C-alpha cells in the first residue's frame, strides 16, 4: 500500500490533533506503550496469537451481509458489516483482545477500563477472564442503570465494576476515573482504553486493532460484488473506534465516501446532544488535542445521547483531522431517528441493532445514493443491551397511536 498521509505522525499527531497531554506521572507508562506497541503488534508471535483468537474465539471474519430488503427500500445496494456477530456482541472485542495481548507482553497484572454502553467493559472483562488478569471497569452511574444487562455480564465474568459518580455520570466521567486509577497504580496496571481516544499511542493503536474491519470488508466486497471499494462506508462515532476501523483501509481511496455519524441527542440546538464535531471546538480532553464540547471558559459540556456508547463530549483525534481536511463527512442523528432506524432494520431484516449502530443506519434516509452504488454500513453491535429502551419506545408508540 502507498504511504498513508492520514496516519499519525512520529510525534503522535494527526495534523494538529492528538499528542499526549498527560501528567508527568503517566509519562513512563505512555512512553513504554509508545516505544513498544508497533514492534509488539507487528511481531509474528503477536500476530499469530491475535489472529487465532480473532478467528476461533471472536468468530471472525464477521459476515458482510447484503441486506436486500433495506437495499430495495433505499434503491441502492446496502451491505451490513456484521460486527454485531462478534463474541460479546460488538467490535469492542477486537481492541480489548489486542490490548490484553500487549499488556501481557509488557508484564502488566492489573487491567482497568472505562465503559459507556458496557460493550467495551464486557469485552475487557472477557479478555481478562480468558487471560486470568484482574479487571476493574469504571462505568458512569447513569450508564450502570441504563445498561444493566452488561453490568451483570461484567460481574459474572469476574470484573469489578466501579460507578463513576462525578459530572454527568457517563462515559466522560468513567474515563476520568480510569485515568485517576492509572495515575495511582502506574507500575502494575495497563489501561485498556475503549476507543480511538486518549494520549498517543492509543488512538493509533486502537485504530490498528479495529482496522481488521475494513481489511475484511475489502476481501468480502471483492468476493461478493467484484470490487474492493464501495461508494460509501458509514459508521457511528462515539469516540470513533468502529468508524476508524471501517475507514482505515479506505483512507487513501478518495473515491470511497466515508461517513461518520454522531449522536445529536434531542437535537444539536437543544443543549442535549453529543454531536462533538458540530458544536465542539478544538481543546484537550483525556490526554488528546481534539474537538470537544465546551463552553467559552473551556469547561467540558456534559453530553447527552440516548445511546450510552455515543454519549461522549470528545472524539478521537483522527476524526477531528479527517473532518478538517474533509476526507470524511460527519453527520448527526437524533435519538428519535436512531430509534426509528433500529425498528426499521429489525422489521425489514430481522436484525436488532445496538442503539449506537442505529445512528449509522439512520443516515440512510438522509443520503442520496445511486442505484448502482455499493454502500457498507458498519453494524457495530447488537441490540440486546438496549431492549429496555426499545421496548419503552415501542410502548410509547403504541400509546400515541
Amino acid at each position, binding site marked *: 500500500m502507498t504511504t498513508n498521509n492520514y496516519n499519525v505522525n512520529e510525534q503522535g499527531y494527526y495534523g494538529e490533533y492528538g499528542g499526549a497531554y498527560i501528567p508527568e506521572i503517566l509519562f513512563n507508562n505512555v512512553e513504554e506503550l509508545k516505544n513498544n506497541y508497533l514492534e509488539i503488534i507487528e511481531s509474528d508471535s503477536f500476530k499469530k496469537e491475535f489472529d487465532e483468537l480473532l478467528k476461533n474465539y471472536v468468530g471472525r471474519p464477521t459476515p458482510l451481509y447484503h441486506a436486500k430488503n433495506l437495499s430495495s427500500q433505499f434503491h441502492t445496494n446496502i451491505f451490513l458489516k456484521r460486527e454485531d456477530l462478534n463474541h460479546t456482541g460488538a467490535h469492542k472485542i477486537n481492541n480489548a483482545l489486542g490490548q490484553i495481548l500487549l499488556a501481557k507482553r509488557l508484564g502488566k497484572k492489573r487491567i482497568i477500563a472505562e465503559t459507556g454502553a458496557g460493550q467495551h467493559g464486557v469485552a475487557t472483562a472477557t479478555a481478562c477472564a480468558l487471560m486470568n488478569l484482574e479487571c476493574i471497569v469504571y462505568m458512569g452511574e447513569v450508564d450502570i442503570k441504563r445498561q444493566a444487562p452488561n453490568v451483570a455480564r461484567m460481574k459474572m465474568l469476574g470484573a469489578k465494576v466501579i460507578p463513576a459518580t462525578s459530572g454527568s455520570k457517563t462515559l466522560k466521567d468513567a474515563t476520568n476515573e480510569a485515568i485517576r486509577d492509572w495515575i495511582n497504580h502506574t507500575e502494575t496496571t495497563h489501561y485498556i482504553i475503549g476507543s480511538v481516544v486518549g494520549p498517543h499511542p492509543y488512538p493509533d493503536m486502537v485504530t490498528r486493532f479495529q482496522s481488521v474491519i475494513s481489511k475484511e470488508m475489502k476481501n468480502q466486497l471483492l468476493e461478493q460484488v467484484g470490487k474492493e471499494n464501495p461508494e460509501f462506508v458509514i459508521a457511528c462515532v462515539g469516540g470513533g473506534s468502529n468508524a476508524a476501523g471501517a475507514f482505515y483501509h479506505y483512507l487513501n481511496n478518495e473515491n470511497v465516501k466515508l461517513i461518520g455519524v454522531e449522536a445529536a441527542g434531542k437535537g444539536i440546538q437543544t443543549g442535549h446532544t453529543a454531536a462533538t464535531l458540530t458544536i465542539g471546538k478544538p481543546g484537550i480532553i483525556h490526554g488528546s488535542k481534539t474537538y470537544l464540547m465546551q463552553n*467559552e471558559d473551556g469547561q467540558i459540556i456534559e453530553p447527552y445521547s440516548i445511546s450510552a456508547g455515543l454519549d461522549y463530549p470528545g472524539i478521537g483525534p483522527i476524526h477531528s483531522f479527517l473532518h478538517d481536511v474533509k476526507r470524511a463527512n460527519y453527520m448527526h442523528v437524533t435519538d428519535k431517528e436512531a430509534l426509528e432506524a433500529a425498528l426499521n432494520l429489525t422489521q425489514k431484516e430481522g436484525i436488532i441493532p445496538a442503539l449506537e449502530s442505529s445512528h449509522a443506519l439512520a443516515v440512510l434516509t438522509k443520503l442520496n445514493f445511486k442505484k448502482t452504488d455499493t454502500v457498507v454500513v458498519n453494524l457495530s453491535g447488537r441490540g440486546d443491551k438496549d431492549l429496555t429502551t426499545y421496548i419503552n419506545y415501542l410502548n410509547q408508540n403504541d400509546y400515541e397511536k
Partner: protein
Amino acid sequence: MKNRIDNLFQKKEENILSIFLTAGYPNINDTLSIIKILDTTDVDLLEIGIPFSDPIADGPIIQQSSMKALNNGMTLKVLFEQLQSLRTITQLPVLLMGYLNSVMQYGVEEFYKSCHEVGIDGVILPDLPLNEFDNTHKALAEKYDIKVALIISPETATHRIKLIDLKSSGFLYLVSSNSTTGNFTAIKQNSYKHLTEITSLALKNKILIGFGIKGQQEFEEACSVANGAIMGSSFIQLLSTSSNFEKDIPEFISIIKNSKS
C-alpha cells in the same frame, strides 16, 4: 523588578511552604480575601488553582472544590478580573495552576499577558507536554516574565529529570508519589526518604514537594529532603469546614510551620 519567585529562593532555601487554593472557593469572592489572610501568616508562596470541569490529576477534595467554584461562576476571565487588585493585597509570589484546556481556550499568549498584567509570577500546567512547552509556551512565558514550574515524579528517569530541570523555571515541582492529589495514604510506608535520590541530584532549580502533604509532620519530612513543600487538599479541607477564616487559617499555618520559620 525581579520575579518574586526568584527573589524568594534567593533569600530563603529551606522550609518553604506553598499553599494551594482553588479560585472562587468556597465562595466566588473568597479568592482574594483568603489570600489577604494568608499574607499575614508565614506562608512563602501561593498557588491559585484555575477550576476545571474534568481535573484528571486531582482526587476528590480538589475535584469538589473545583466543581463548587465553577458552580459559583468562577471562570479564568473572572479570576483575572479579581486578580486586578492582587498586588494591593500581597507581595508574596503567586502562581496559577491549571489544566491546559483552560489556557488554550483563553488564548495562550493572552494568558501569559494577563498573568503579567495582574502580577502573577509563575504557572504550573500539569498536562502541558514538553514539546508544546518548547514550541509555544517557553517563549511567551519569557516574554511576559512568567516562570513555568515543571513537574517530575518519583519515577521520572534521571536523564529526564535533568532535561526537565533545564527547562523548568521558578522551581521544580516534585510529586511525592504516583498518585492523584489529596491521597494522604499513598506515601505512608516509605515517607519521603526515597525522594532524596532525586533531591540530591545537582539541579538548577529548587525543589518543592507536592501531593499528599497532609499536616505538620509531612511538611517537616518533606522539608528535610527538599527546599519545601506544597499543601493543597488539606488546606482546601480546612476551607470547607472552617466558619472563621480569620482565626482558622493563621492557626493552620502556624501549626504547619511550627518552629520551622
